[in-house]
């Protein structure tokens, strides 16, 4: 256990530049890939069992094989670097520290898909990373890894960075495509899927930063070898963004299948809960996935140890499980108010709803208002049922998954922490003063 494929050599000198990256074996996968047939690369990725690292976990090789190939119609690969899921910061970390890994992955993937113009859609707030990528792309052009006839293979590729301007919804692939076309980021109804009609109605594949970066080690080590890492259908390594009340927040690359308990408490990873507090709850895969109390995150309902893998985290469905999602691991200590945390998340979804679908546009707003009632001490027990009712009326009734993303945290909080909602109802105003959390120990210590 403990292999790292993506961020193993960050301590090497100059790894951000092309010379440092090449000195540590960079661009060897590209040289290898360009000697292969595009179908062979797709086959390797299929064999690797790589699943989309943005959150949905859809098999990447399968997604690639869906791309339509009508004659004389250009195809595009778009990298989704619009990392906005609260709790997730792995892509920013990767692009900042090792931009050439993403670029190499994109060249190989573009070759496999037959795309001659590819884009990295990065969120506008990360403008400094935008400039890092632009510089790295220029280096790759100068070295002959981009442009016409790459390394004499006859394959041409232009790679551009495109910056967004602040919208969570543009992380949804059809919202991203609309945004790339210069419009509001309103997601499209599927079908047609982007693989058939994507950006400018041309066949398009949208992949997460980490997914495309993972293509590099897959080509280097072969898909079969990559598939040996991990557990079951959760193959390979995954970047986990750890945040919240832990001793060592940061980005960790784990082999899928590490026990959650080890991840939280071992010195190698999060190093336990800070200030000697007890763990209360964990959001394991970015703010959209269901929150779980300590007993259910450490062990499944069957009493087996919970592992950091797609299957183990979702064991028990939403009744007792959650999802790996984007790997945004948020730990909350015993002083955390689940209700207030939920209000914070719901405010986020209300702010970020694009407004196309009524259930999401209106529902998120009402959920935020009702949760605020709890915080103000005006809520009644009927409000708990009302919240439950509203979330059920959003889930599955919207064009894009933002509806689910907003509904699931509400459902899970009520499911696992109903007594806390009842406490707010019972104590009314008193609750507001008694439980005013987060007097930021960290800020006051300084």
């Amino acid at each position, binding site marked *: 256990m403990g292999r790292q494929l993506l961020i193993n050599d960050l301590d090497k000198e100059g790894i951000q530049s092309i010379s440092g990256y090449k000195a540590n074996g960079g661009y060897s996968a590209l040289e290898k890939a360009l000697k292969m047939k595009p179908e062979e690369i797709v086959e390797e990725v299929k064999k690797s069992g790589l699943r989309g690292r943005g959150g949905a976990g859809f098999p990447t090789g399968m997604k690639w094989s869906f791309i339509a190939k009508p004659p004389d119609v250009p195809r595009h690969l778009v990298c989704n670097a619009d990392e906005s899921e609260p709790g997730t910061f792995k892509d920013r970390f990767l692009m900042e520290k090792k931009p050439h890994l993403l670029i190499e992955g994109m060249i190989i993937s573009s070759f496999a898909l037959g795309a001659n113009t590819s884009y990295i859609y990065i969120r*506008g707030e990360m*403008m400094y990373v935008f400039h890092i990528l632009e510089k790295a792309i220029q280096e790759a052009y100068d070295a002959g890894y981009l442009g016409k006839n790459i390394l004499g293979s006859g394959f041409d590729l232009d790679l551009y960075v495109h910056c967004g301007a602040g*919208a969570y919804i543009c992380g949804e692939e059809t919202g991203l495509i609309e945004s790339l076309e*210069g419009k509001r980021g309103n997601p499209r109804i599927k079908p047609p899927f982007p693989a058939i009609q994507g950006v*400018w109605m041309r066949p398009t594949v949208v992949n997460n930063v980490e997914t495309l970066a993972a293509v590099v080690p897959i080509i280097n080590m072969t898909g079969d070898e990559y598939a040996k890492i991990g557990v079951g259908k959760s193959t390979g390594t995954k970047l986990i963004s750890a945040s919240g009340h832990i001793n060592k927040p940061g980005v960790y690359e784990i082999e899928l299948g590490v026990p959650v308990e080890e991840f939280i408490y071992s010195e190698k990873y999060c190093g336990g809960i800070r200030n000697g507090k007890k763990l209360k709850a964990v959001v394991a895969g970015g703010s959209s996935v269901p929150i779980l109390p300590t007993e259910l995150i450490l062990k499944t309902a069957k009493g087996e140890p919970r592992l950091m893998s797609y299957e183990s985290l979702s064991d028990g469905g939403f009744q007792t499980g959650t999802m790996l999602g984007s790997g945004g691991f948020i730990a909350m200590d015993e002083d955390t108010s689940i209700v207030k945390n939920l209000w914070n998340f719901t405010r986020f979804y209300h702010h970020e709803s*694009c407004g196309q679908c009524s259930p999401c546009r209106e529902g998120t707003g009402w959920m935020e208002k009702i949760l605020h009632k709890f915080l103000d001490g005006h809520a009644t027990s009927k409000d708990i049922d009302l919240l439950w009712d509203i979330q059920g009326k959003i889930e599955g009734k919207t064009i894009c998954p933002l509806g689910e993303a907003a509904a699931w945290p509400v459902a899970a909080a009520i499911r696992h922490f109903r007594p806390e909602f009842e406490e707010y109802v019972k104590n009314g105003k008193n609750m507001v003063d008694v439980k005013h959390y987060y007097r930021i120990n*960290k800020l006051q210590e300084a």
Partner: protein
Amino acid sequence: MQSESTGSPKGMDVQKYSNKKNLRFSDEALALSQKIMKRYPEGKQKSAILPVLHIAQAEFNGWLSVEAMDYVASLLKIQSIEVYEVASFYSMFNLKPVGKCVIEVCRTGPCWLMGAEDLVRFIEKKLGIKEGQTTTDGMFTLKTVECLASCGTAPMMQIGEKYHENLTFEKCGTILDDYKNKGEQISHWRKERIKNHTDIHQ
């Protein structure tokens, strides 16, 4: 997306920030915009709208007036309404005048767990303004924003391009004093980036 109120021009000379007359990009900004437009297929230059609006914001004092948006529409050869609807959708575009220095404090999830609320109160007290307002000297605008993907280094704020992470009251206070002393316009797409765009490939 709901538009965030980004600073009433309270106490500021709005006329000073209006660019009604002779509104046009500098030569460098114009060249950069045209370079960016070429990144998209022929006839799809509308795709350049977000980058060009960022440049416009850097060129025109950190916000987009109706005239600025009309100018961008003329550059991209699209209707003005197409620019308005986009500019009003994305939270990074300020449709009202802002201070020279826009402070954006992350308020979501992990940052909030680590004390973002208190940080906002601290800045409000220090600058004597409320969230969404601009200081009377036109130096600072305070905004709260949603997750900036810096959760492991919470709490944090962004000023212009720069992420300021692992903040404490003291650290935050020092940073704000530094910006005040510099007193220059800070934008996400910085002016010097526009001037030195030779590193951006064709």
